[in-house]
């Protein structure tokens, strides 16, 4: 989508970022499911940061940041604080970002037990817990709005492409979308 930036001056386009925390990437897949409408959207937005583009650092002055996934590690918290400080409108996309959803199902189980289950109990060879260069799991997985202020919540697992398109289009037009009219928890 960055190539389209040549067609129009970048200043007139909204700078949009997408972030992937603890989630299955299904919300990003649903985003891509907008299909040909992505072309229409590309006329209005410039995708400045996303798992879908090759950009390592979260850039400054982002108009809209769309977050998929729950906050599960210390790295996620730091990332969200940086994103929030550089973003005008922050959207929590999907049930993981909005409620914690499936990742939060470990919350009633101590983290140590979760690690044992994943790396020791079921390992046949060299059972060991990875210890270096990895983000530290939080005791509890949290929805994004418990860590930073969220402006728009879009529930759904994943939210339908139609809902994402409607909500983003309304926001780009400067209107407030009626989110509950197009999606719900578990949709």
């Amino acid at each position: 989508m960055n190539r389209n930036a040549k067609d129009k001056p970048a200043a007139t386009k909204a700078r949009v970022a997408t972030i992937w925390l603890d989630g299955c990437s299904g919300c990003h897949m649903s985003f891509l499911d907008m299909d040909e409408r992505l072309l229409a959207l590309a006329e209005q937005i410039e995708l400045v940061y996303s798992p879908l583009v090759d950009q390592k650092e979260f850039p400054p002055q982002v108009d809209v940041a769309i977050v998929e996934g729950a906050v599960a590690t210390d790295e996620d918290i730091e990332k969200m604080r940086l994103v929030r400080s550089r973003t005008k409108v922050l959207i929590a996309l999907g049930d993981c970002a909005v409620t914690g959803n499936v990742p939060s199902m470990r919350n009633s189980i101590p983290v140590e037990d979760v690690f044992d289950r994943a790396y020791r109990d079921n390992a046949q060879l060299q059972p060991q817990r990875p210890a270096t260069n990895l983000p530290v799991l939080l005791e509890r997985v949290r929805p994004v709005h418990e860590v930073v202020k969220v402006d728009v919540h879009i529930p759904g697992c994943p939210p339908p492409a139609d809902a994402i398109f409607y909500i983003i289009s309304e926001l780009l037009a400067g209107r407030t979308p009626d989110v509950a009219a197009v999606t719900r928890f578990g949709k």
Partner: protein
Amino acid sequence: MTRPSVPKPAGVAQPQVVTLRIDGRDVSARSDETILSVARQNRIDIPTLCYLDGLSGWGACRLCLVDIKGTPKLLPACVTLVREGMEVTTDSPRLQKYRRMVLELLFSERNHVCSVCVSNGKCELQAMAQRLGMTHVSLPYRYPRLEFDSSNDLFRMDHNRCILCTRCVRVCDEIEGAHTWDCRGRGIETRIISDLNEPWGESSTCTRCGKCVNVCPTGALSQKGTAVAEMTKRVTFLPYLTLMRNSDEP
């Protein structure tokens, strides 16, 4: 746990006809009717979760709270009788705020993970959240560790999804007459139990009729063998049974 559905006005032999206003509309009703019943007869829909037509009113979920002029407290429409000259408001920004708060409390109290629930897409709690425009829970989630009773060979009880509406308790007591279900504990520690807090499968009173499963508004009670979004509840038996019973009365 059984209590009369609606307290009858003392000393009134015959119900009287009263007139009142609901949302600015003049309506008439019998004095032994609840605000909820009269509102619905007049096509004014007040949101409810614990109420179910055919079972006694309980006032557990507090979604049907309404504003009555001259009363400082909000009152549950399902267990409040109409009075002459009453002025009832069923919808206002204040009521919407409290109803959303009630829903947020229900969602945060236990583990309602819609995406992996047997009742996804058919759940009354989920549908109510959408209807009332609740797109997130602003209260911190509790994430309690709760049990799952699969001891019954036909059905299962998942306490993670239970909202303590007590529909199962009431249908088992009032319609089936078995009174297998009841509540133990108080407040946030309340749990639905079968018999004397024994595994459901070992219950000596359960008739395995499945009425509790069908009236359950969420995925708390479900049929075995159902996976995500596969549990459809059928409550059509309830008005039918109630009608048949009432017609037997002299």
